[in-house]
């Protein structure tokens, strides 16, 4: 649906050239929710703004539903943009217009007939759950409500693709979840493909099917959310994944515990989350598992758990226990000290 190929963008700044994007390629399949995560300055904003050409890439192509939008004429680009909805961190509503007009004015300007405008405004305000605020002004709405209006405004053009530029970053955690649920609903019920950028792992975890991690204008890792969560390879990815579990042990504690056994990080996916694997290990082998830190979280598709366990016992027995756990489909990793890996997974 969205295919970004070898996209590069350089800015001329006073201090020289800035490479905001370096040879970025990614593909978002139809009906998918795809998230790009990265710290500020990673280039993710430039990336998403290149998809509807708010930012003109220096080289590379972006094609949407098979059309290369980088090669369109001005007029064709206007038409193509109408099929690409976009929502923003700052909502970007007209302050001087009511909720109704905020949705209706862009429709009028894109030549939608009058009767249809009325019908669409009502339909999409219902979908975002703001039908009662039709005459309110943005200043009278909360942040979450403003974002709902912005979502309704985007949906009213009946786009095939929705771009979300940090849409939940300005919202509190509860409102963030409500907006994420709304995006999920839009994706499932209207079949709209969503490409979003965020710096919050929580957003990826909750609604994304696929994820790409960006750093210094490059995609350093990408794949399904599950794969990236369970076996993050790049250091930045590991940091993001750990931000959810936040297992932190002091180096002293690790040293002490190492004398009597091994500290292992266990990751449970799907069904394995529901079996008492540790209890079985304690019975079968001569080891004493001690949970140091643990967390089970819900990915979009399945539960995902991560435990930090100290296995006390003879090395031999500990190895057998670990081997058993691996055979049960649990991913195990030896824990390294802070120096090598700032946080521990």
């Amino acid at each position, binding site marked *: 649906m969205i295919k970004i190929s070898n996209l590069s963008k350089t800015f001329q700044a006073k201090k020289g050239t800035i490479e905001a994007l370096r040879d970025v390629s990614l593909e978002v399949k139809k009906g998918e929710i795809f998230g790009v995560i990265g710290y500020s300055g990673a280039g993710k904003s430039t990336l998403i703004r290149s998809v509807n050409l708010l930012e003109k890439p220096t080289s590379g192509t972006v094609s949407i539903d098979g059309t290369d939008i980088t090669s369109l004429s001005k007029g064709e680009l206007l038409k193509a943009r109408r099929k*690409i909805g976009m929502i923003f961190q700052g909502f*970007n509503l007209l302050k001087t217009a009511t909720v109704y007009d905020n949705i209706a004015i862009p429709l009028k300007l894109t030549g939608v007939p009058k009767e249809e405008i009325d019908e669409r405004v009502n339909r999409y305000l219902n979908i975002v759950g703001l039908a009662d605020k039709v005459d309110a002004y943005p200043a009278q709405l909360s942040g979450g409500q403003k974002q709902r209006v912005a979502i309704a405004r985007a949906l009213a053009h009946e786009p095939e693709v929705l771009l979300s530029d940090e849409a939940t970053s300005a919202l509190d955690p509860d409102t963030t979840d409500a907006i994420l649920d709304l995006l999920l609903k839009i994706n499932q019920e209207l079949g709209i493909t969503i490409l979003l950028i965020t710096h919050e792992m929580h957003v990826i975890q909750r609604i994304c099917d696929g994820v790409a991690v960006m750093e210094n204008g490059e995609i350093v890792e990408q794949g399904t959310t599950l794969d990236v969560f369970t076996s993050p390879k790049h250091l930045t990815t590991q940091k993001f994944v750990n931000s959810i579990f936040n297992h932190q042990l002091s180096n002293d504690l690790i040293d002490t515990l190492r004398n009597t056994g091994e500290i292992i990080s266990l990751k449970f996916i799907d069904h394995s989350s529901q079996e008492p694997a540790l209890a079985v290990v304690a019975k079968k082998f001569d080891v004493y598992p001690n949970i140091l830190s643990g967390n089970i979280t819900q990915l979009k598709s399945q539960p995902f758990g991560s435990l930090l366990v100290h296995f006390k016992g003879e090395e031999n027995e500990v190895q057998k226990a670990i081997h058993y756990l691996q055979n049960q489909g649990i991913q195990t990793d030896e824990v390294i000290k802070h120096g090598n890996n700032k946080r521990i997974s």
Partner: protein
Amino acid sequence: MEIINGFLDEWGEYIWEAIIQTFQMVSISLIISIVIGLPLGVLLVLTRPGKSLENKYLFGFLNVVINIIRSIPFIILLFFILPFTKLIVGTTIGVLGVIVPLVVFTAPYIARLMENSLLEVDRGVLEAYEAMGIKTKDIIWNVMVREARPSIVLGLTIATIGLIGATAMAGLVGAGGLGDLAYRFGHLRYEPTVMYVTVGILIILVQGLQSIGNVVAARLKKD
């Protein structure tokens, strides 16, 4: 009461005539100045570096011309452009003769005020409309000017008050008006009452205008 009646009998006609002349000069030159100044303001915003119609030369040219005109005090401008006035309206005296310098004086001022108002409009909103595939000209009128309306109204209020001040000098080319009345009768013929009344009317006029401007701007502003 008698004093007031006496004063009105003697001066009422002059004062009324002066008010009408001031209104004529202000309203006609204000309308023409808006027609010229607003598009100039839009152009100043759109041609600046990084904006949709970026054009260094046009932007630089407009900037310099506006600054030059804005440097000249009205009393000097009035005489400085006499040949131009003659060329445009065929006369250099009367209400007609003063409209030209008033417009030359006010339009660049309005352009600057409009530029400021338009620059205040949140860039994000403009971008959102660009992302929705809306034409630049539609964005200008339906987003930029619309969102800037409260600020535009306040700017026009300031411009109008400045214009009233400028019309006071119009007497020098025989255009009449309240300033001229105060100068000729109040100062030259030493009729202090006429001076006080004229000043009083001007104060009421300016206060009233500013209040109306504030109320309208507050109405338009929804946050």
